[in-house]
């Protein structure tokens, strides 16, 4: 239990005492700079941020890494496998040439496939997050500000989207969708598979952001600065995107940073279930799916992709939490 009125009084007394900038003699700090300063002081944010930057760099620079490493993701090293298809050597064939070993069966290099897997995962996850956030923000801000019938209709769509079972939908729709454009024997192009996944995520993922944004806007709508803009004759566009949007960046950013890891795992899950990306595209889900058969004979094959996806998702989540704390220092602690 918190002593709300008590703490409130004391804090108000300490904090309400703003004084003119002229007396302070400090350089004026924008809200963004304040967040950046708080973020820099947070060790969790620092570590998870560095991990994220490294992983993103690896994804972006995948072709370069591939060239320096001297191996391509589809290259097969059949001569390094034994007669049963298991990699020679220890720990799944880890060596100076193949840092994380080789895949059993096809003999492809795990390290470079993982680098490309990160690239695929992040591309899909970021793409889906951008699309869902955009849809969610636009719908949420319109519903929240206009209210009434518009709000009711958008709310109804949100409920319908929430009521549909995502996994069943994905399992049923993704293959049908592919068949609509390509024959059962055609190779499905990568861009098509990626787009399909993003569309499927987008169809379901916008609801959370839309609700979040709507709630924020409803509470801001009655604030006097919004009325001031209305009293000056501001139009709808100005109200939504000049007055309201800048004030809800914080929750949107947090929602975005927490959506990305959920799409990473979502893509992995769908690929694992066989409805995600085609075999030729390196992806975490595929790798883990294939590795399950070798759980006992070649644990390293499961270990490396598993630990990387874990690190990626954890880093994103921790960073999202740290961002939330930095944006709203009063919410926690």
């Amino acid at each position: 239990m918190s002593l709300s009125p008590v703490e409130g009084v004391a804090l108000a007394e300490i904090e309400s005492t703003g004084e003119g900038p002229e007396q302070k003699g400090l350089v004026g700090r924008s809200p963004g700079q304040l967040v950046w300063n708080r973020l820099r002081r947070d060790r969790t944010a620092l570590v998870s941020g560095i991990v994220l930057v490294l992983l993103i760099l690896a994804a972006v620079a995948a072709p370069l890494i591939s060239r320096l490493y001297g191996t391509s993701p589809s290259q097969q090293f059949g001569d390094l496998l034994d007669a049963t298809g298991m990699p020679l050597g220890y720990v799944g064939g880890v060596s100076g040439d193949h840092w994380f070993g080789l895949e059993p069966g096809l003999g492809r290099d795990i390290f470079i496939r993982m680098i490309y897997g990160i690239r695929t995962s992040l591309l899909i996850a970021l793409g889906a997050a951008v699309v869902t956030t955009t849809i969610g923000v636009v719908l949420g801000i319109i519903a929240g500000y206009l209210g009434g019938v518009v709000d009711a209709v958008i709310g109804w769509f949100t409920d319908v989207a929430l009521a549909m079972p995502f996994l069943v939908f994905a399992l049923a729709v993704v293959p049908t969708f592919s068949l609509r454009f390509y024959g059962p024997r055609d190779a499905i192009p990568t861009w098509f598979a990626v787009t399909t996944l993003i569309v499927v995520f987008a169809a379901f993922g916008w609801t959370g952001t839309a609700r979040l944004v709507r709630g924020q806007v409803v509470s801001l709508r009655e604030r006097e600065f919004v009325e001031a803009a209305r009293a000056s004759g501001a139009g709808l566009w100005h109200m939504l995107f000049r007055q309201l949007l800048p004030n809800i960046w914080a929750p949107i950013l947090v929602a975005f940073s927490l959506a990305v890891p959920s799409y990473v795992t979502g893509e992995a899950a769908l690929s694992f279930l066989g409805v995600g990306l085609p075999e030729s595209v390196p992806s975490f889900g595929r790798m883990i799916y294939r590795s399950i058969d070798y759980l006992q004979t070649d644990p390293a094959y499961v270990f490396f992709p598993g630990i990387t996806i874990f690190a990626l998702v954890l880093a994103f989540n921790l960073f999202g939490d740290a961002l939330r704390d930095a944006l709203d220092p009063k919410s926690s602690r």
Partner: protein
Amino acid sequence: MTEPLLKVRGLTKHFPVRDGFRARGAVRAVDGLDFDVRPGETLGLVGESGCGKTTTGRMLVRLLDATSGSIEFDGRDITHARRAQLRPLRQDLQIIFQDPYASLNPRHTVGRIVAMPLQVNGINPPGGIKKRVQELLELVGLNPEHYNRYPHEFSGGQRQRIGIARALALRPKLIVADEPVSALDVSIQAQVINLLRDLQRDLDLAFVFIAHDLAVVRHFCHRVAVMYLGKIVEIGDRDDIYQRPQHPYTRALLSAIPDVTTLGPAGRIRLAGDVPTPLNPPSGCRFRTRCWKAQDRCATEEPPLITRDGGGQLTACHFPETGTISQDSGPVGATAEEVSK
């Protein structure tokens, strides 16, 4: 006699109360107001919470739509004007808000806040927007170099000045000021009142000054309208209202204000109870449930807002008070003893 700048007739606002889907009556927030504001004049709109003064202010600047009645500004009926038709009017009619913290967009710089009315109306003043904004900041006593700062770097009084600068950006003829000083520290209140007074004099602005504090209103307004439960109970020139109040409610309100000039408990008029709910206001005179003079007639017949002495002071009371309150010293509630029991 100059033509009134603002002419309000029968202004009414009812907020429907729903019980699920069924309408369950209406909150009669504002119920038939008539008043005028002449150019360069300040009208004080005074009353306790729930009397409808804030709703009235919001209707005047068209943030709320009136249920019925008319608002005429500068000779044009703006009661139902649409946004495009309102556009030229917006420039003449602005509002200052109560809460200096909520009324400024925390993510915008001061420059952007003050420039907003210019931008949304597509006005490019000579010398550019920035120059105009800096002039405005200087006009309200802020350092023009603070153009690029954010609201959180300013104190309450300074923020209120920013809000005033924004309201002045379009060079309005009339400003609705909704409790502009009540959220400020005592020592800052006087600064802002003086600023508004100077602006009023220098720019020949008309004000509708909404406040609950009669002492503040006295220092700022030429005329005063006292509201109770959505109606004007008394309206008149400042000196009439403060020295010769005729409505019992005005008297009670004046005597309830703790004034520094009197030490110890002065003879206050003790009003019993609270303001009744506007959902179901009393019949007849709405003040009768708390009035010490109420008689049967007050419950059945609503008193009209009329003049008692042929002058400009209008009172809505069947049994108006007479007598003068001294403005020089001593407790206000001179009639308190005879009234309290």
